[in-house]
Structure formats: structure tokens, C-alpha cells
């Protein structure tokens, strides 16, 4: 499948430590000056990758702390922006408690429908920043 990669190349580094998405070009394209070969695997590419602004690292870290506390994980358990709560063993009750912990920490209120959609640390951090911004606007 021929696809244009011109816009996706620049945002790839943000998520490279959290996901294993690999990219490959079907044909060599003169525009790319690197030797990297990429295979686009649509299944593993989150749609949000293309349009969202990544949340601040500070927010991501605070969210990770709260998640670790709620799930009673050890401090050295690796939790990054791309980590899904379910991969850490969180069930729906955990997710809701995580949301309450985040609300307390950041002084915000998340509508239940949006809170239930949060699946990763990154998504939580982005929603938090959006709500904090609205609050201070």
C-alpha cells in the first residue's frame, strides 16, 4: 500500500520508547535522507499519534506515580506514557480510583464518559492538561 510518510516522520521519536511500532517504506523515496527503513503497520499505530500534542513530561510522571500507588506497584515497575492501565492489571474499579486520585491531585473533575475512555498514562495526562487549562482559562 503506497502511503506518504512526510508528515509522520517528525513525530515518531516521541513514542518510540513506549511502543514497538516499526515503519518501512515500500519503495525508496528520495525525500528521506536517512537510512532508516520503515514498515507501516496500521494495526499498531494509534490514531491519536497523528494529531495530538504530547502532554508535559511532568504531568506524565505525576500520573505514573498515582497509577503505581493505586495498583500497589513497586517503584521500579516501568510505567511510561504509552503504558496501558490494563497491561498493569487494572480493572474498572482501579481505573475509576485512578481517576479519583488524579482529580484530587490536579484539582479537576473528569466527566464519567471521558474518564472511562482513558486507557493509557498518556491519555490521562492529556485530559488532565486540557481540564487544568479550562479551569484556569
Amino acid at each position, binding site marked *: 500500500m503506497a502511503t506518504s510518510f512526510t508528515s509522520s516522520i517528525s513525530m515518531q521519536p516521541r513514542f518510540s520508547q513506549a511502543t514497538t511500532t516499526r515503519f518501512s517504506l515500500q519503495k525508496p523515496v528520495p525525500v528521506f535522507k536517512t537510512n532508516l527503513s520503515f514498515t507501516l503497520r496500521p494495526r499498531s499505530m494509534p490514531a491519536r499519534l497523528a494529531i495530538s500534542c504530547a502532554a508535559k513530561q511532568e504531568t506524565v510522571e505525576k500520573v505514573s506515580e498515582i497509577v503505581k500507588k*493505586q495498583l500497589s506497584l513497586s517503584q521500579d*515497575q*516501568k510505567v511510561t506514557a504509552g503504558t*496501558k492501565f490494563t*497491561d*498493569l*492489571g487494572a*480493572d*474498572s*474499579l482501579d481505573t*475509576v*480510583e485512578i481517576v*479519583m*486520585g488524579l482529580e484530587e491531585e490536579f484539582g479537576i473533575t473528569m466527566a*464519567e*464518559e471521558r474518564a*472511562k*475512555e482513558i486507557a493509557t498514562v498518556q491519555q490521562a495526562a492529556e485530559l488532565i492538561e486540557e481540564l487544568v487549562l479550562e479551569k484556569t482559562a
Partner: protein
Amino acid sequence: MQRSFSIELPSLVPLQLPSRMETHLWYILPDEVKNTSLLKHYSQLLSPSEKDKVVRMRGNVLKKNALLARTLVRTTIARYQTNNAVDPRSLMFKKNMYGKPEVDWQNHKNCNNPPLHFNLSHTDSLIACGVTVHVPVGIDVEDKERKIKHDVLAFAKRFYSTDEVNFLSTIPDPEVQRTEFIKLWILKEAYVKALGKGFSATPFNTFTIQSKAGTEGGYNLRETSEMAVNSLEETKKCNGEWKFALLELADSHYAAICIEDDQASEESPMRVIVRKTIPFVEDELISESKLL
């Protein structure tokens, strides 16, 4: 789709289908499954995407439980196809338009059994699968000792309906309050999962579940409208449509089951057959299931 495997899997013992208004509840205790070659057999049953999910789980306990969960679903459903033996590896799954998993029977057109419904739930120490025919089912299980890290009433006020908050706030003992909170949680989860429309369609504060006075294990479901002015209009009974059961499993867990009652058989309680299992090894019928 034929896949060849070097290790021959033992055959699965077939099962009688559940009757109408009956739920079969199967559960595995992960701590009882330690045999590594058995676990290896199980991993051969999984599809590539299921294996991916197992790999994604952090830590060996979570990986094992994810493996057991998929094994439980595949082997249990395969066993109900009493007319033609179905290879659990060949089962395919899809999601309904709201994301609820269901069996995709496209490869098994010869199956003339009535439509099977299933729903899965698990905690760290127990994995359960509910099975029904004709009607959708939702289940949720929780460790009886599960601690809530927030204040239970604050939690309830945030998410539950007004009537449920009132019920919880009349309970003086905080331990009892905690367990009643958990029972309500799993009943509500079971309903949302049975409905299969996802949380956005059914926020927790839009419906109330309460136990029917004077019956063993009966529960009422009411929709609540926070916007209603007149309290008579406020609750719309949708009682004849859903049945609930709440029980204790293995002395350690609460399990809630919700099924659609399409025949409005209001008075008869749900029959639940509970069996503990180790796939390919043994089933144990649990005859004394405490209905709560």
C-alpha cells in the same frame, strides 16, 4: 484453518447447554494451575493477537492470568458444541459495535446450536466466565477483601445513584459499608456488561440496583432520571427485563451475574450452575453456592 502442533492436546469433555434463564458460571483459580507443560498446551490455543496481549501484560502473574482467561473462554465454548466437536483453537471472536466481545461463528456454519453468549471477568486470584443461551449475559467478580483506597461514600456520591448513596450511608459499620459498596459495584458492572453498550451509554448514576426485600438473591433494577422534577416520574421500572444473581465463590470472591429476561419471568430467580475448572484436567460442580 489447520495449524499443526507437535504436542497432541487431550480432547475436551463435551457439555450440556444451559437452559433458558440459566447461567453457567465457570471459574479458574490461577494458584491451582502450576504445571508448566499444561500452561504450554494452553498457549497453543491462543490466536496471534491473544498471544500479543499476554505478552503485553506486565509480570508473570498477569501474563499467566491473561493466558488462563483466554483458555477458559475458548475451551468452555468449544465444549458446548455437542453436535460437532469444535477445536478451541479454531474459534474466532469479534466485537459488537460497542466493543463487547462475542463469538464469530463464520467458520462453523454447521453449528445448529442456539446462540451462546458469554462474558468474562477476572481478578488477580480468580477468573470467571458466564455462559447463557439466547440471552446476553454480563458478569463481574471481585475479591471480598478488596480495599477501596478512597472514602467509600465519597466514591459512591461521585458515581452511584442517589438511592444507592442513601442506602450506603445508612450502614454504620465501615466494613459492612465497604462490602455492600463492592456488591453494588459488581452488580452494576454486570448490568453494563450484559447490556454490552459500554459505559458511555449507561453511566452508573443513571440506574439503581437494590435487593428485593423478602426474597433470596433477588434484585430490582430501576432507571433514575436526575432531571425529573416529580418524584413519581423519577423512577421508571424496567424490572421485567433483567435478572440478577449475586453469589460467593471459593469463599474469597463475590460474583454478580446479569442476564436479559426476555420472557419477563419476574418471579422465578435465575438458576446458576457453578463449576470450578482446570481446562483439559477436571471440572468440579460447586453445589453449595451461597446466593446473597
